[in-house]
């Protein structure tokens, strides 16, 4: 009984349910399976702030959005082609973005009176005709899952929890995915509880068989593999990529990796990930707070480790004073800030890129440091690596910016060859004859890295102003100005290593879009669309936010208009205006959500039309 299979170029699917329904797990599995069969993917996990908001309520809805495609994509998609809603609250919060005539798979079992009331529905949408404009598939997953698992003799509670895999089975059938990977995942995930592996596997198969048998769907779909560049790939999230970038830098520099950290959403996974790699000599230290975390890292850097701390905005606020110390004593360390929506505790599970000012200026005194920002989940690898390289070469703390969207998002990553990664040379000071704690390298202005335990190099450092060269305590006014300028110049010199900025599109024209961080995908997609329409639009993306690339001023001045979309109220735009005196236009969204490329396209049209 084979059904017609329609070939799609891309599809956007959203799984939505209660936070206890396991939507992240099955959404993630759909993403992994799709990546493994060669699709390009973009994902947006979207979870509630509460670990367990009351079941069935609107704040308790957990969503996982997935964009699969047969070509190179850069975003998790906008409007969904298919929505799975496990309960009324999930339907209510997500229906708005389902395309007209989109596929709507609903778990009827979740639509009891109580749940309808909790989601503030006056009438049952399954009965009142309000869903008529969609392809509605109302399926009682609760009952069907129970039937499928009857023989196993498991408790009703356990059986209930398997319905997410029933839903996944349906989606798998609908998009012609193989079940192999999901089945082996269940086997390893529940290796200690084989009965759960069996139950979920059965639910998964039941979902798929149900679609096959009932002729629910007139067609199924396929999304062919994307034509990505050759190579070996894996699916990777931003936080994992960051952790791997740090380990790679440790291996390539020969320095042992030390991470001092205090848990905070959405950065904690960097700590979790690195904690697994003790056999790589990685030491992870869960400190008593963020201040202790960065201080332990300063100690580790002083002692000759590749020292890293990971945090999010509120944690970076606490680290400010210690960062000043690291700048003053000129030690190499990396601070990873996975930004989230603020101010204060803000919206911890939602994304934002509003810590740029904090990163650039959030310290007392004149305290410049290099700032780099990753642009895609997989790019976290390279950018974290680059942060380590700069720190070691230039003897300075470096701020690495990521955000919740990159951290939890995932995409296929062309795995690099370890041997191709650039070496990171390290020179510890050894020779007492030529040693002075603040004698600078002529090219980089970096001071020597002299670690305790080296005979003959005994010396003292501290946050108090230092005399040039000797490092002795000094309150001499001219020396302070000299040292302040030296520290700043040292950071400026890093720009010598920044490769020329790539301009996507014409080198001059009406409109240049400037992006940084995780807006990369949305901006790129928008600009590509507009370029296809023949519009005079170009794009650059800034990885190094301090110092800025040397060619940036030239580039900005070659365009009539400059547009800077940011997930904040306008931060880079102010830096650019102040530094280059160009009337850059800010375009800002502060909703805890990434941009849709359509929003940026609209803005582009608006600017081009108004000229």
């Amino acid at each position, binding site marked *: 009984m084979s059904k017609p299979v329609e070939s799609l170029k891309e599809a956007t699917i959203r799984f939505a349910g209660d936070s206890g329904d396991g939507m992240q797990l099955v959404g993630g599995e759909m993403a*992994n399976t799709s*990546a*493994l*069969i*060669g699709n390009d993917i973009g994902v947006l996990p979207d979870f509630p702030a509460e670990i367990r908001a009351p079941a069935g309520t609107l704040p308790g809805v957990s969503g996982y959005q997935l964009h699969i495609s047969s070509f190179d994509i850069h975003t998790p998609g906008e409007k969904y082609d298919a929505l799975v809603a496990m309960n009324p609250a999930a339907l209510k919060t997500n229906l708005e973005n389902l395309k007209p005539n989109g596929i709507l798979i609903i778990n009827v079992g979740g639509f009891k009176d109580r749940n309808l009331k909790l989601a503030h529905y006056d009438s049952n949408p399954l009965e009142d005709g309000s869903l008529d404009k969609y392809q509605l598939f109302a399926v009682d997953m609760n009952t069907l899952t129970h039937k499928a698992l009857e023989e196993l003799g498991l408790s009703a509670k356990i059986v209930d929890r398997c319905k997410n895999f029933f839903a996944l089975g349906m989606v798998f059938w609908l998009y012609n995915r193989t079940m192999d990977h999901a089945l082996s995942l269940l086997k390893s995930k529940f290796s200690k509880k084989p009965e759960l592996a069996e139950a979920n596997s059965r639910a998964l198969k039941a979902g798929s068989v149900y679609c096959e048998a009932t002729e629910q769907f007139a067609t199924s779909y396929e999304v062919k*593999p994307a034509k*990505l*560049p*050759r*190579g*070996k*790939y*894996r699916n990777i999230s931003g936080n994992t990529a960051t952790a*791997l970038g740090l*380990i*790679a830098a440790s*291996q*390539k520099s020969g320095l*042992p990796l*030390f991470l001092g950290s205090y848990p905070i959403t959405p950065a904690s996974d960097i700590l979790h990930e690195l904690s697994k*790699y*003790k*056999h*790589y*000599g990685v*030491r992870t230290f869960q*400190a008593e707070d963020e*201040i*202790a975390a960065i*201080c*332990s890292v300063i*100690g*580790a*850097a*002083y*002692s*000759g*480790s590749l020292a890293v701390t990971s945090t999010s905005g509120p944690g970076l606020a606490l680290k400010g004073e*210690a960062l000043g*110390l690291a700048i003053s*004593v000129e030690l190499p360390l990396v601070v990873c800030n996975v930004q989230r929506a603020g101010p204060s505790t803000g919206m911890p599970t939602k994304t934002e890129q509003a810590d740029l000012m904090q990163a650039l200026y959030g310290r007392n005194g004149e305290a410049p440091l290099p700032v780099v920002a990753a642009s895609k989940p997989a790019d976290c690898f390279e950018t974290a690596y680059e942060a380590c390289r700069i720190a070691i070469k230039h003897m300075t703390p470096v701020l690495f910016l990521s955000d919740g969207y990159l951290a939890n998002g995932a995409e296929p990553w*062309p*795995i690099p*060859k*370890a*041997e191709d990664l650039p070496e990171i040379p390290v020179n510890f000071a050894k020779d*007492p004859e030529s*040693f002075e704690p603040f004698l600078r390298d002529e090219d980089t202005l970096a001071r020597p890295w002299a670690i*305790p*335990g*080296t*005979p*003959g190099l*005994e*010396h*003292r*450092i*501290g*946050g*108090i102003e230092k005399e040039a060269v000797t490092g002795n305590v000094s309150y001499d006014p001219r020396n302070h100005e000299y040292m302040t300028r030296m520290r700043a110049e040292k950071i400026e010199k890093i720009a010598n290593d920044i490769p020329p900025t790539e301009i996507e599109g014409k080198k001059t024209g009406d409109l240049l879009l400037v992006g940084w961080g995780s807006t990369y995908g949305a901006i790129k997609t928008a600009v590509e669309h507009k370029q296809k329409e023949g519009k005079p639009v170009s794009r650059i993306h800034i990885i190094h936010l301090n110092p800025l690339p040397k060619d940036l001023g030239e580039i900005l001045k070659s365009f009539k208009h400059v547009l800077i979309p940011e997930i904040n109220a306008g931060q880079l735009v102010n830096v650019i205006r102040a530094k280059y005196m160009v009337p850059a236009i800010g375009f800002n969204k502060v909703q805890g959500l990434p941009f849709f490329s359509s929003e940026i396209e609209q803005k582009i049209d608006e600017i081009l039309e108004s000229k």
Partner: protein
Amino acid sequence: MNAETKAISPNGPTELKLTKKDFESDQEVRWCPGCGDYAILAQTQRTLPDLNIPKEKYVFVSGIGCSSRFPYYMDTYGFHTIHGRAPAIATGIKITNPDLSVWVITGDGDALSIGGNHFIHLLRRNVDINVILFNNRIYGLTKGQYSPTSEFGKVTKSTPFGSVDHPFNPVSVALGASATFVARTTDRDPAHLQKIIKRASAHKGTALIEVLQNCNIFNDGTWFKYTDKNSKAENVVYLEHGKPLVFGAEQDKGIRLNGFRPEAVSLTNGKYSEKDLLVHDEKDTDATYAFILSHMMDNPNLPIPVGVFRAIDKVCYEDAMAQQIEASKEKFGKPDLQALLEAGDTWDVE
């Protein structure tokens, strides 16, 4: 730089033949004339040569305060950091480089006020670091505000009508944080100070030394009752492992337990003899006894204990960490970066 000392290596002769001079830096010492800090510096410089540790292995880490200037005056590795955070920085140094002899220099404000959190967590973790806490019961560097060890009712610049804060007792706080080595000494008893520094250095784990220190500018004489020749004997009981708690100019008094309460008794009126007294046991793994001793300071009718309150064995943080790393290496084998990058599910695009 003192290039002559570079010949000394960790594998060198056991007799390093260092002298006090080897530990004196070329920086001018800048504490107020008469400050107790001078004595602590001098006794430290005098003691280190006896520890037989190569000079380059020493790191002195301090926070902020008068006392925290200390590392500048030592010709060792030194790191003058930020207020209260020296324990955290020292932890990073020690756990990445367990070979070093790491010393934290801190004040009562630095350790117990702004740095209270790091102080207790250092002790709890039992990182092998020696902490010398200069307790002058005042903020010296900021010119005389009350500190977390100042007495209730203390009149200072910030408390003109007397402080309404209850003080911390550093030894009790340390014991509460499960410290494995806790000692108290004074700036005016050089021999005792030296002995305690040696004991702390020999201890494997975090060693806390509280030094009762005089700030002659802002809190002159705060400890004189316990440090002055004339009053010391009657007000201080020296702790020695295995010995009964006897004190007094004539060694004619002792401490006995009445229930859980310590009391001072006379050994001359025929009622009690040495047999009735508490016998000091620094090895007691139950902290109750050490707590009882630490609270003697709060009772004006009792002498204060000076010496080693507690010295017990417990695994150090950095050793446990190193063991995990070794065990992991054994279990998972050598690092292989390419294998790590390719871990999990991968696929090939042709």
